[in-house]
């Protein structure tokens, strides 16, 4: 179980990607996308962990710290993810207004009309 984090990352990533592809409902697709992105966040955080290291806050008692840089990167990526999700949900609201549905197949049918 040395690589437990990474197995979780792979499982979550594939689950998310599968939901994006397999689901017909636009909101559920976005949930899948969110799970996919979260898996990447966990990947970065796992990379940052130094075994035996403490949180990267300077104290007298600690000599070994985890790498803070990926944490900062992922803070940025989380913000980007939230912006993407907000835009996507806004689009879903507009799609619902314009098509009266948020199901992939129904929208495809109505697009052709």
């Amino acid at each position, binding site marked *: 179980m040395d690589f437990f984090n990474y197995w979780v990352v792979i499982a979550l990533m594939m689950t998310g990607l599968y939901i994006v592809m397999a689901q017909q409902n636009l909101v559920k697709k976005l949930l899948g996308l969110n799970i996919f992105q979260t898996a990447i966040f966990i990947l970065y955080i796992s990379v940052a962990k130094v075994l035996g290291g403490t949180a990267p806050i300077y104290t007298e008692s600690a000599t070994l710290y985890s790498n803070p840089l990926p944490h900062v990167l992922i803070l940025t*990526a989380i913000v980007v993810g939230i*912006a993407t999700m907000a835009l996507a949900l806004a689009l879903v609201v507009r799609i619902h207004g314009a*098509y009266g549905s948020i199901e992939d197949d129904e929208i495809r049918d109505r697009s052709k009309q």
Partner: protein
Amino acid sequence: MISHLPILQVVLPLLAAPACLIFVRARSIWLFTCLACLLTFGISVALFLHVSDVGPLSYEVGGWPAPWGIEYTIDSLSSYVLLLVSAIAAVVILAANSSLGPELPERQQPAFYVLFLLCLTGLLGIVATGDVFNVFVFLEVSSLATYALIALGRQRQALWAAYQYLIVGTIGASFFLVGIGFLYALTGTLNMSDLSERLVEVEQQQLLAVAFGFVVVGIALKMALLPLHGWLPNAYAFAPSIATTFLAASATKVSLYLFIRLYYGVFGAETVDALLPVSIVFLLLGIIAVLAASLVAFRQSDVKRMLAFSSIAQIGYMAVGIGVGSTLGLQASLLHLFNHAFIKGALFLAVASVVYRTGSSQIDAFRGLGYRMPWTMAGLVLASLSLIGVPLTAGFVSKWFLVLAAIESGLWVVVLIVLVGSFISLFYLWKIVELAYSKSDSEASRNEAPPLMLIALWVLVIANIYFGIDTRLTVGASASAAATLIEGAPW
């Protein structure tokens, strides 16, 4: 002053975007955006001249030295692409106010300009930065702005196209993020020049291959390389015409730039090809893209869609240039990247003028337009000639270099593909031209596009002819960029 230009190039449109909202009337916002785009263009000209005279320029954001801080680096390749993107933005924005009139309600127009500037910021940022994580951030800045720009389209399908592009685009950007995450885990750096030095020492070749794979697939999605092009036709067809013009001329080009920068400049083509058959895949996919997308373009009845498929085919040419693998092949790709931006910009702007006057981009709407909008159609014909690759146009220069590169490498099939692809494009463009110059039943009076749209169109058309005759700028810059990249020294 000159040392601050790399960051100003990106920060200026970024600050101009929210500043737009100081103004109330859409017309004032448009004038302000024009000013911002012109200044941005001025900065890129200054950078281009500086880099070609003095040499590469580096800027440490916040005074933190690289590789700890974020570094912005402008070399011959990035100054060349910055010049292209900002020039396209400055020309396209001239036509925006007229073109948006019938396509977007007045109260939504401010949003267009804000999004336009944000999209420009993202694209310029991708090119200017020397830090791979910063690339991801700018990639998302430009992508989010692009999704919203597409959603501004008149028809409800625009929303659907924007949603689909959002899903695919986010997956592409996330793949890129996974890739650079692996690279960071392997090397402990995100700075491009630092990364290129440290990648040589990496021992875990398998993980390196995975990292390259994620990065390449992520970027290929963004640049709409053939099997990953699904988002592009709907997005281009349903976005507001002027947004399509800008995106078609710049967005996919910047993704291609990013690929070239990472593949040659950072990873090293030989290192990647030892692990993954990237150049062969690009060659094959490029060839399929040229043939398949051109044939599909021929069958379209909506001209915007037709040109969108043509764009996928043209991306194919650029991929073929990379796939050939020689310095000359890379130079051909860089030339086509530049020239195609002007070609597609001109073509989509001509279509935008037609949409302005007739309200439709269906091919039937073009009937008799050669007499009603003679200047617009003349521009469309000249840009079409350039797309086909007739001598004395920009399109000829890049295809000529691609053919030269293919002959040099003994890839005769590529020569054949270039000729066949050009031949098919002649057919689908002829469909438009033939209709435009056939007499229509109801003889309407002359009804030319608004002056600013015509000026913008003709600036692009003249650029097409100018870069077809005087090739010093394009050939010189692409030659020096290609030589630097192939030698493996990133900067």
